[in-house]
């Protein structure tokens, strides 16, 4: 029976020209996408408390939950039919253009959300336009070097710096410089073209820095391919060569462009909050904080659909540009280029770490909670960073915050490492979840977790873990496969070592060291993500001195006293440079 089944399966696999693993990966991908949609649909139930009670709290926070009122709410929303029925009716309603009514205002939400989505898409369009122009500008030096036959990857310190700053930190800086100090552009709102400039720049600069770096790496690599030399010897014009090289390099970068655009959907949330833009991100964030579940569901769904769409688009584009060569597996292989790492690339992370440690040491003895100074007191010798809006010592708050953030980030990294290791043992089964978690912006997962768990430090940590296990799992599965293929592991059964002992005493020790290094390299990045969730009000709660929180609390006073923004922005800036430069200076040592 079993043998027959096996032969039938084998025959089925043979009749389809697909690789078995390919079909497996695709179904894993689809299943995990369906999984997320189901999670979104089930949000009202996942919070662990009665949805009717949640709604009551959301709408009339002061009313007492009597059984009668709760029953009335249940009936009016059809909550009494149970989660399955409600999920189906939610999905059915969506198909008919009915996304339900807000738990807060009691009005239908679809129209408002569509308007908000329009605003966000406009912002996104401007951002992408600016990003591509900037990214191409960043590539010009590499192209010129390539044409002169000196293709090498630049260390790109400038581009690294651009990439390093997360959008919400950069936006605060731009706001400070562009509208407060120079007064050229409006601070908040969405009333005309001049209102797009700062938000679009804040989103585009990090994106362009990242894409520009990737693209110029690829361009340098493509210039080493043999055909470029053949073309130039044959007298093909430089312009044609540049176009062909760009086309080749772009296709390699395309999947990353897709991922970057998807990641932008998360950043848009922060940017819309800072600049008070009435887009989908701000609406969803507001819904998450006020526990208006239907609006949150719709907002998250919009972002997911957008992300899925971008993924499809990128695949189609890639197939169109590469076409025949991709199908026939005839892509030329680039020569392995030497990565020239300047000594300064090692120096940057060390300097950043040193500065952060000095700041922490200087402030750790001071009191971060008590109100000892004037509100918004200006910096002085006794008070190096000034005081915040409540009159608390900013240096003390930042110092305590760094300790707090570091410990939490390390814990999150270790939990992600553990999860990643375990999940990495089943690479084919988990290919879809790994991909989805890799693409899911942490802010989106933060929104989902906040809706389930309520905003807070634990929720934020869970949200970060939900996305940060994925790269570690991918790494773990690659490492495990490599270790299991080693002859001494393959031959272990011969000396009586069983499967469990093999995994625990032979595979694990060989895998854990590089994996631990990888996880530690991610600590600054994780700290930054936690800060961004804190900034959005999805993470640490007041009065805890969390950096993102400090920045968010200072931002309203930016026009009166810039130091409440400068201090957290510089601390976060140092942390971001540390995050990116550690990864690029120590990350590619294999």
């Amino acid at each position, binding site marked *: 029976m079993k043998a027959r089944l096996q032969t039938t399966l084998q025959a089925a696999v043979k009749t389809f020209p697909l690789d078995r693993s390919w079909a497996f990966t695709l179904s894993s991908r689809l299943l995990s996408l369906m999984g997320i949609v189901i999670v979104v649909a089930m949000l009202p139930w996942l919070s662990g408390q009665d949805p009717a009670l949640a709604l009551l709290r959301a709408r009339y926070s002061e009313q007492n939950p009597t059984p009668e009122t709760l029953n009335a709410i249940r009936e009016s929303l059809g909550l009494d039919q149970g989660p399955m029925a409600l999920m189906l009716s939610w999905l059915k309603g969506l198909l008919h253009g009915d996304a339900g009514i807000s738990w807060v205002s009691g009005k239908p939400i679809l129209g408002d959300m569509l308007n908000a989505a329009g605003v966000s898409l406009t912002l996104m369009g401007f951002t992408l336009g600016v990003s591509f122009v900037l990214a191409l500008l960043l590539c010009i030096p590499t192209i010129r070097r390539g044409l002169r036959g000196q293709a090498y990857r630049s260390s790109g310190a400038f581009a690294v710096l651009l990439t390093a700053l997360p959008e919400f930190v950069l936006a605060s800086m731009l706001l400070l410089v562009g509208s407060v100090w120079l007064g050229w552009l409006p601070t908040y709102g969405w009333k005309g073209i001049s209102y797009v400039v700062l938000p679009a720049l804040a989103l585009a600069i990090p994106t362009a820095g990242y894409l520009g770096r990737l693209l110029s790496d690829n361009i340098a690599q493509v210039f080493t391919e043999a055909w470029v030399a053949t073309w130039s010897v044959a007298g093909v014009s430089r312009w044609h060569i540049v176009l062909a090289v760009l086309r080749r390099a772009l296709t390699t970068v395309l999947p990353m462009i897709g991922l970057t655009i998807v990641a932008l959907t998360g950043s848009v949330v922060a940017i819309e909050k800072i600049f008070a833009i009435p887009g989908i991100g701000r609406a969803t964030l507001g819904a998450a904080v006020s526990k208006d579940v239907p609006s949150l569901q719709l907002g998250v769904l919009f972002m997911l659909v957008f992300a899925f769409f971008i993924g499809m688009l990128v695949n189609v584009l890639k197939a169109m540009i590469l076409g025949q060569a991709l199908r026939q597996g005839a892509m030329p292989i680039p020569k392995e280029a030497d990565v020239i790492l300047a000594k300064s690339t090692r120096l940057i992370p060390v300097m950043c770490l040193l500065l952060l440690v000095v700041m922490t040491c200087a402030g750790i003895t001071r009191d971060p909670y008590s109100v000892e100074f004037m509100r918004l007191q200006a910096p002085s010798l006794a008070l190096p960073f000034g005081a915040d809006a409540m009159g608390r010592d900013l240096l003390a708050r930042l110092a305590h915050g760094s300790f707090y953030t570091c410990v939490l980030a390390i814990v999150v990294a270790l939990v992600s490492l553990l999860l990643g290791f375990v999940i990495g043992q089943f690479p084919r089964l988990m290919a879809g979840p790994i991909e989805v978690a890799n693409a899911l912006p942490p802010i989106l997962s933060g929104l989902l977790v906040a809706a389930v768990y309520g905003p807070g430090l634990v929720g934020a940590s869970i949200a970060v873990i939900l996305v940060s296990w994925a790269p570690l799992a991918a790494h773990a599965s690659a490492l495990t496969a490599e270790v299991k293929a080693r*002859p001494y592991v393959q031959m272990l059964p*011969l000396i009586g070592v069983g499967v469990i002992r093999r995994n625990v005493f*032979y595979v694990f020790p060989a895998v854990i060291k590089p994996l631990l290094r990888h996880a530690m390299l991610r600590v600054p990045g994780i700290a930054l993500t936690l800060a961004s969730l804190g900034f959005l009000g999805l993470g640490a709660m007041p009065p805890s001195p969390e950096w993102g929180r400090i920045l968010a609390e200072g931002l309203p006073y930016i026009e009166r006293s810039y130091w409440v923004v400068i201090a957290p922005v510089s601390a976060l800036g140092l942390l971001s440079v540390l995050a990116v430069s550690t990864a690029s200076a120590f990350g590619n040592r294999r």
Partner: protein
Amino acid sequence: MSQVPFLQLETLRYGRDRASDIIPSLSLNIGQKERIGLVGESGCGKSTLLKLILGVIQAQSGQIHCEGEPIRITPWRPMNHYRKLVQYIPQDPHTALPPHQTVATLLSEPIKRLKLGTPDVAMLQRAIEQVELPHSVLAQKASELSGGQAQRVALARALIIKPKFLLADEPTSGLDLPLREQVKALLSQVCDENQMGLLVVTHDISMVSGLCDRMLVMQQGRIIEDQPTADALRAPNNIYTQRLLEAVPTVHANAWQPSSLLSN
């Protein structure tokens, strides 16, 4: 050798599908204490056959019997009895020993896992003496050993189990020439001392002629030559064996004369 052969392979098949099987169908009997050399080109299925016999991979069909008992591979149930009878030394000793373990640890592992007793220093020292290494090696890590030392340690680990039969996968190909001779001599010596059979996969015909009393030649997963070594070398049954023998490089002291090149 009148009774049941030590190992019986019956119509073994291994491969992804019938059109491109690595081993389409292979039967072979191996007697007690027999020393066999297996030669063939790269990719002919020698190493696969070795792994099949070792029970590291499972044949799609066919059966292996050892001393009349069928060998069945199950990933969760250890085949300890078979492991004690048949052991293996690897092709590349550097990748075949866990690099982070000391020689003492990696020698004790099979003793503990196969429940051969409790490993004590005397036992380990005897094992290491048998392969002509100093006792100090025991404290070293596998990654610190030289190629020749590592191969000897691998051999010691196989011998400590006191198997009746040893399989060797190109045991000398990773070593330089003087070391090859030493390992060859050592193999011959330990087989004599331990009354052990040997199946050695090799590219080195001199190894077969010096060490083995039976020679097998494999081509595309089939055994095309199976004779006593002396006969196979003198009068091969198969044209392919003949070519293989002719391709053996021989060194003549006066074969290369720079002057003759110049005069041309």
